């Protein structure tokens, strides 16, 4: 929390036991309570909440109710039930990705009958759209280098592989002497915060990141967002390019595409669904191990698969057909995700205005053509190129100077 309001409490699993108990006993003293759906599922927490009257029930990142995959949070699905128990207070659901399908899922899950819906267009007129096709991986790297040396920073380059983000950040760093850092879930929390903050304070020009980067980062002057790989859906693409140009100044999104790139997200998808045997193993073992990690190791599933299966074991009738039911449901999800990937491939290969492609995948139809719209309608890169050369920042002070700068 950077600004203002004092009577705020965040109840999460990091809160030390004593403070948590104090907070739960004095909940009515706070004006704002920030709480994770996982915490809301706990009885003691629910009981404490029932002692105060909730005037406004806000669900942030509400698409987590609907989207499966890394974003999926099974406990979001219980929010409707909790909302009713709290006496159905006025509810506000917020998301940056509100397709009709997601909106419907949110309404159903939160048990809202006829909510007012405020849908803003996904179109961001100040972000120009470009797709660049490369014939090989090497060519892609070459193009990326070119852009990093000419286009305006600050910028983000998204990768679907941690290793590649690391390696290319290293390589291009030394080749171009730019300030580039890589950011992904493999780094410990402190390093992640430092990189985020360096970027925010303009100590870094570029961040090479996996999709983990950007949530909760409110940086206004990001000029360029490049996708080195295909994102997994139009929703995540729009979220990621939407981090550019929050100051409303001209910015650009560039997607680098080679034929067959869609194999990466498709392979990831295949890995996402556990096999029928694993689902059966889950049923057999899930109560017999100490920690989720032990279970994941024992039956060879990922943490995401584990979370999904945990949800099904408590919400789907646990009879002899359980494993088959779950397997079929997961197959349906998989099919939906294939569709999402094909949408983004269609965007990359589009013969028509890219802005229109984006809008249409969110069922918007208004006329969007504009100057500097996209590479199909016509686009001059000159406007997005650096006009000043950054000075060489290689000289970091010695430790005494550094300490003096801090104090």
């Amino acid at each position, binding site marked *: 929390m950077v600004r203002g309001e004092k009577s705020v409490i965040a109840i999460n699993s990091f809160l030390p036991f004593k403070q948590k108990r104090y907070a739960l006993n004095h909940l009515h003293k706070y004006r704002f309570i920030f709480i994770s759906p996982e915490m809301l599922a706990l009885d003691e927490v629910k009981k404490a909440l029932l002692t105060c009257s909730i005037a406004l029930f806000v669900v942030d990142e509400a698409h987590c109710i609907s989207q499966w995959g890394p974003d999926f949070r099974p406990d979001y699905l219980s929010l409707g039930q909790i909302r009713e128990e709290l006496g159905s207070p006025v509810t506000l659901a917020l998301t940056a990705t509100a397709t009709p399908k997601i909106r419907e899922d949110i309404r159903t899950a939160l048990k809202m009958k006829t909510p007012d819906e405020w849908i803003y267009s996904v179109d961001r007129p100040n972000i120009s759209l470009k797709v660049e096709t490369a014939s090989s991986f090497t060519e892609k790297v070459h193009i990326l280098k070119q852009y990093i040396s000419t286009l305006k920073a600050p910028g983000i380059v998204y990768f679907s592989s941690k290793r590649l983000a690391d390696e290319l950040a290293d390589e291009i760093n030394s080749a171009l002497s730019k300030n580039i850092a890589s950011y992904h879930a493999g780094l410990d929390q*402190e390093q992640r915060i*430092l990189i985020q*903050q360096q970027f925010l304070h303009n100590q870094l020009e570029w961040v090479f990141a996996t999709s983990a980067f950007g949530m909760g980062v409110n940086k206004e002057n990001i000029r360029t967002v490049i996708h080195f790989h295909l994102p997994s859906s139009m929703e995540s693409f729009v979220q990621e390019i939407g981090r550019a140009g929050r100051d409303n100044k001209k910015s650009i999104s560039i997607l680098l595409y080679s034929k067959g790139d869609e194999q990466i997200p498709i392979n990831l998808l295949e890995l996402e669904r556990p096999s029928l045997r694993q689902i059966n193993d889950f049923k057999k073992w899930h109560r017999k191990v100490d920690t989720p990690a032990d279970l994941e190791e024992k039956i060879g599933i990922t943490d995401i698969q584990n979370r999904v299966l945990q949800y099904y074991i408590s919400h789907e009738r646990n009879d002899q057909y359980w494993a088959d039911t779950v397997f079929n449901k997961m197959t349906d999800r998989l099919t939906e995700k294939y569709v999402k990937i094909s949408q983004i491939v269609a965007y990359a290969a589009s013969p028509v205005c890219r802005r229109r492609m984006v809008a249409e995948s969110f069922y918007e139809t208004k006329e969007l053509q504009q100057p500097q719209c996209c590479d199909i309608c016509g686009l001059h890169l000159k406007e997005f190129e650096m006009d000043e050369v950054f000075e060489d920042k290689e000289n970091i002070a010695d430790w005494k100077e550094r300490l003096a700068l801090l104090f």
Partner: protein
Amino acid sequence: MTYLDAILLTCFRLFNGDRSRSAIYHLLTGKKTSQTIQDAHLYGVSNLFQTLPALSRFDFDSSCQKLMDDKLIFIIENNRYKVTSEGENQLEAYYEKHFFPLHVQGWNYQDRAMVFWKRLSLLVQTLSNIYHNERYFYPVQRDPEIQYWVRGIFLTWGDRRNKKIKSLHSELMQLCQCSGFPDRPDFFIHRLSGYRLIGMTTDQLAKHFKMDAAEAHFRFLNIVHFSINHIQENPVSYPLLNSVIEGIAQEKVILTSSTEKTKEYVSRGFSLSDIAAARKLKESTIEDHIIELALMTPSFAIDRYVNESLQEMIWSQALNLNHKRLREIKIHVPEASYFQIRLVLVTRGRGDGKWKDYSSKNLALNHSEKAKGK
């Protein structure tokens, strides 16, 4: 050879084929099981305990594979490896050119060192921002316990804050310039954040000083561990820094939960076999618990499990053999059980420092002094 390779090679050398390579992984990531804790002490590698908590199994395995491919280690059986003579030579040569983390005490400081670092870095960031009249900033530490601590110390300071800024600056200057300071302070100071100046990451420091990230990490740990020790020995010279450490050192030791239960039975006077029967566990499991207890509680008396004369016999054999293979000690002291031998080895090491001397013969400690300045 990378720095990680060298650390792994050091571990392989000290375990000397007695333990699987997983034991090394668990040691470095600090897995708190009886087995890992015992191994750390039995083989004199407790200094490295939990020094790489974020090491991925993948990176660990590929580093091991590389050591094998380069014929620096060889497999003896079942995932157990020994160092080849080429490995010995290369390791020695490596530490002549690279920094040896002499002051790292993984077992003694464990995550407490990180609590110290987190408190200090958030304190510096907060003071620095206040000094520049900036009231709003993103804390570099998100751990609520750390934030509560910083908030608490600010409350007790009241309007003496501005004075504290000056004292913290001068105490840090004094610390980094003290005569025993083990390294260039950059690895520590450059990681601090403040007003519009965000600290550098391990990777960035490594790149800047042209070394690999593991080395930058160990040089940072080495400084932090040295500092905690130095400040605690000179509390009067570092009143403020000492208050950052306060309360961390005394934190209760954390036993694995199963050991905690065994502890209750022990204190009620149950014998080893009675505990095993009461808890429906194998005796060997209870033995592991007792060894863990002996390690974690300095006052724990082992006399009820090994009489004093047997203790002496085991220990003198261990020193004689210059070797920690339980089997060989057992040959020379046949009347002792393996449990009794382990118990003596780990507690002697803990108590009088003899164990450290003994194990340091296996470490290339002398080289570290030469490598210090580099």
